[in-house]
C-alpha cells in the first residue's frame, strides 16, 4: 500500500465490533421468551475484522451504504466505543465532528455554549479565550451571540456548533455527515477551512454521501460493506463502486 508510506496517523488492526441486541427488557419478558424458547438476545456484527492504516496528512473518504459500519468505525476511532477485538491506535489529538452541537445547552447563551462546547471537545480556557472572536466571526451570528441557544434556528445552531468544532486544536479530524443542513455559502466556507487543514498536514476522515464534497476534499477512498473493507485506493474507484 503506497498510502502508508508516510507516518501512520491511525492504525486499525483487525478490529471487530459486535452489538448484542436484547429482546427481553424485563424479568417478565425473560420468563415469557424462555418458556416459548425464543432467543433472548441476538448479535449484530457491525465490523468484521477491519484493517486500515491512515497516514499523516491523508484525507480519506469512507463510503458505504447505510448500516455498513462507517459510523461505528468513526466512533471507535474517536474513543466513544471500544472494539471487541483488535486494536485502534491514534497519534495526536483526535477531534470528531461526529455530532456537532451534542454538548449545547439550550438554556445557555451562545457565548456560554461556545465555552462549554469547546471545553467538552477538550480545549483549555486560555485556548478558547484566544480563539473566541475567530469562532464567533466564523459562525457569522455575532448579533445573536448573547441570546439563549434555544431561540436559534437550526441553521444558526449548526453554524455556531460547527465553528466551535472546527477551531479545536487537532491532528486528526473525523467528520460524519454534518454539513447537510448548512446553506451553500456556509458550506463553501467550511470547505475552504477543510482545505486549509489539509494544507497544514492534518489528517481528515470523512464519512459522507455527498460525493461532490468528497471529491473536492479527499484523495483516497475506502468502501465498507457489511462490516468489511471491500475497496481501498483511489477515490474515483471507490465512488464508482458505491454508485454502481
Amino acid at each position, binding site marked *: *500500500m503506497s498510502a502508508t508510506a508516510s507516518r501512520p496517523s491511525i492504525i486499525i488492526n483487525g478490529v471487530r465490533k459486535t452489538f448484542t441486541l436484547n429482546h427481553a427488557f424485563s424479568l417478565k419478558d425473560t420468563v415469557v421468551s424462555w418458556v416459548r424458547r425464543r432467543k433472548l438476545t441476538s448479535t449484530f456484527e457491525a465490523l468484521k475484522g477491519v484493517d486500515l492504516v491512515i497516514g499523516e496528512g491523508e484525507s480519506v473518504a469512507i463510503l458505504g451504504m447505510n448500516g455498513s459500519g462507517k459510523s461505528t468505525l468513526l466512533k471507535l476511532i474517536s474513543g466513544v466505543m471500544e472494539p471487541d477485538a483488535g486494536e485502534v491506535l491514534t497519534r495526536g489529538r483526535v477531534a470528531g465532528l461526529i455530532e456537532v452541537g451534542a454538548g449545547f445547552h439550550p438554556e445557555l447563551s451562545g457565548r456560554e455554549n461556545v465555552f462549554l462546547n469547546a471545553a467538552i471537545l*477538550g480545549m483549555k480556557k486560555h485556548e478558547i479565550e484566544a480563539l473566541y472572536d475567530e469562532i464567533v466571526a466564523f459562525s457569522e451570528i455575532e448579533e445573536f451571540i448573547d441570546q439563549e441557544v434555544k431561540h436559534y434556528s437550526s441553521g444558526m445552531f449548526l453554524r455556531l456548533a460547527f465553528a466551535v468544532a472546527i477551531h479545536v486544536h487537532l491532528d486528526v479530524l473525523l467528520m460524519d455527515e454534518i454539513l447537510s443542513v448548512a446553506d451553500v455559502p456556509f458550506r463553501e466556507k467550511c470547505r475552504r477551512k477543510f482545505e486549509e487543514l489539509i494544507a497544514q498536514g492534518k489528517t481528515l476522515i470523512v464519512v459522507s454521501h455527498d460525493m461532490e464534497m468528497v471529491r473536492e476534499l479527499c484523495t483516497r477512498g475506502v468502501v465498507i460493506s457489511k462490516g468489511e473493507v471491500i475497496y481501498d485506493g483511489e477515490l474515483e474507484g471507490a465512488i464508482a463502486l458505491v454508485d454502481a
Partner: protein
Amino acid sequence: MTTNDQFALVSRTEFDIPGRSHGLIDVVRWRYLLRLLVRTGVTTRYRNSVLGWAWSYVRPAAQFLVFWIVLGIFMNLDRVPNYAVYLFSGIVVINLFSEGFKNATTSIVGNAPLVRKVFLPRQLFAVSAVLVSFVHFLPQVALLLFVCLLMGWAAHISVLSILAVLAGMAIVMVFSLGLGLFFGAVNVRFRDAENIVELMLLLATWASPVLYAWTMVETAIVEKLGWPHWIVELYLLNPITQGVELFHYAFWRPASQEIVNSAGYAGDALTAIPPDLAVNTLWTALIAIGTLLIGQFVFRRLEGKFAQDL
C-alpha cells in the same frame, strides 16, 4: 497479512488508544470543563421559575416543618433539647447526601447525547452532580448558622467544631459520589437502579439519627430487644449517621448550651456524644473512600459499553 506485520514494527509509545480512561485523575485534567458543568448545573437549575433560588430554602423548610410538627409536637420527640435545631442540622446533611447521590445516579443517562457521541471522561458528570448539590447545600448551612448564632453558638464552639463540619461534609460527599458512580454506571443498562436509589434515600432519612437521638436506638437495641451492643456500633458506622452526628456536634450542641444552662430549664440534658465520635470519623472516612474506589472500579468496567447501551 502483510499489514499486520507492519503494525508489529510500529512503536506503541507514540500512539494513544482512544477511549482509554484514567479514572478520577481525568477529572483533575479536565477541571475547566468540570467548572463549566458545575456552573451550568447551578445556573440553569431554577431557570424559568419565578421563585428561583428560593426553592433551595422552600423544600428543606417544608420538610423541617412537617417533621417538627408531627414528630416534635404530636409525638413528643422534642424532649431532645432544642429539637428544631437538632432536626435541621441533620436534615441539611441528609439533603446533601440525597441530592448528590440521586443526581449522580441519573447523570450518565441524563447526558446521553454527549456520552453517545463525544468522548470525554464520563466521571465528570457524576462529580459535577455532587458538586452542584454541594452548592445548593451552602445556603441551607448559612441559614442553620444564622439560627445557631442567634442562640449563642459562637460562645461554645472550638476548633473541633469547625473540623467536624468539614469532616462531615467530606465524608458525606465522598460517600455519595462513590454510590453515585456505582449506581450511575449500572443505571445505563438497568434503569432499575434509579428506583433502588429512591428506596435507599427513603430509608436513609430514618436510618440515621436525624429525627430521633442515637441514644434511643441504643436503648431499644440493648434494653428492649436484648441484642448485643455491637449492633449499635455498626449502626454508628454508617457514614451518613457519622455526618449527621458531626453536624449535631458542631451546630446543635454549642447552640443548645445556653438553653440547657439557663436557670429554670426543666427538660432533658443534652444527648450524650456518641462514643468514639473521633475514631469513627476515621473509620467512616475509610468506608466512604472504599465506596468511592468500588464505585470507580465498577464505573470503569462498565464505561466501555455506555455508548452502545444508552
